[in-house]
């Protein structure tokens, strides 16, 4: 499975995880599904990082994946801090926003780079930002 596919799978996992949080909040079920998936998602970016390093991605993409890994590892720990530091634990959903944004960025960049890099060929540089019209930047 390619890096981009794994990155998009992780992104979908984050969305499912947030839906499971909604399911817990609105008391459709208990929090066990959210908790169980959370522990799995927490370590998934390590796999993305392990795949990214030999894939010769841009340095910025690698740093985004490092950031994603850190944020994902911290996420379950924040929830676990609810008894000793409830205000710190309250950052759990805020950290989820960061996780969502970083997962999206990583998946998009991995897809862009997969299109640009062909096996056995040297990497071509990314298009400069100035090539975009100020009125129509990328989303």
């Amino acid at each position, binding site marked *: 499975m390619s890096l981009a596919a794994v990155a998009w799978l992780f992104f979908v996992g984050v969305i499912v995880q947030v839906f499971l949080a*909604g*399911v817990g909040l*609105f008391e459709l079920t208990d929090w066990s599904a959210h908790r169980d998936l959370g522990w799995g998602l927490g370590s998934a970016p390590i796999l993305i990082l392990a795949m990214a390093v030999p894939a010769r991605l841009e340095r910025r993409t690698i740093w985004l994946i490092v950031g994603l890994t850190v944020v994902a590892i911290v996420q379950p720990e924040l929830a676990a801090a609810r008894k000793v530091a409830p205000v710190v634990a309250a950052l759990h959903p*805020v950290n989820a*926003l960061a996780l*969502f944004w970083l997962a*999206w960025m990583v998946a998009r960049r991995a897809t862009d780079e997969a299109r640009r890099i062909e096996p056995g060929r040297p990497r071509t540089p990314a298009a400069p930002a100035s090539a975009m019209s*100020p009125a*129509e930047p990328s989303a």
Partner: protein
Amino acid sequence: MARALREVGLARLGFVVGAWLFVACIVVQVFLVGLDVFATLGGSVHRDFAYLYGWLAPILVLLSAAARASPRTRALTLVLLVLFAAQTVLPSLRDEFPPLAALHSVNALAIFGLAIVVARRATEGIRPDPATTGP
């Protein structure tokens, strides 16, 4: 400052400031959910804060038009308003359609992502064109 304002335009500057303020309010709003869940703050603070900053969503639609943003940016700002309106309705469905109410949290992600996209596009709109400015 006055010169910069003349060059950029009040509407464009207002669009940028409003868009990033909206993003910041979403982050605070999500933190309030966390305080409700983990520190028993009470859900009313989360609800009241939504109505406090919610007026920013229609204002952004007006500002995007006044700032002469691209049609795509204006459309995205309108979608942001629709998602925000839906967000206020979703929790009220908890008794009739509980799975729909549970989408409240997923819709929050969509609002957050879209708000950042709109804010970035608004910011791009006030950046000087590198082709016309010197190094």
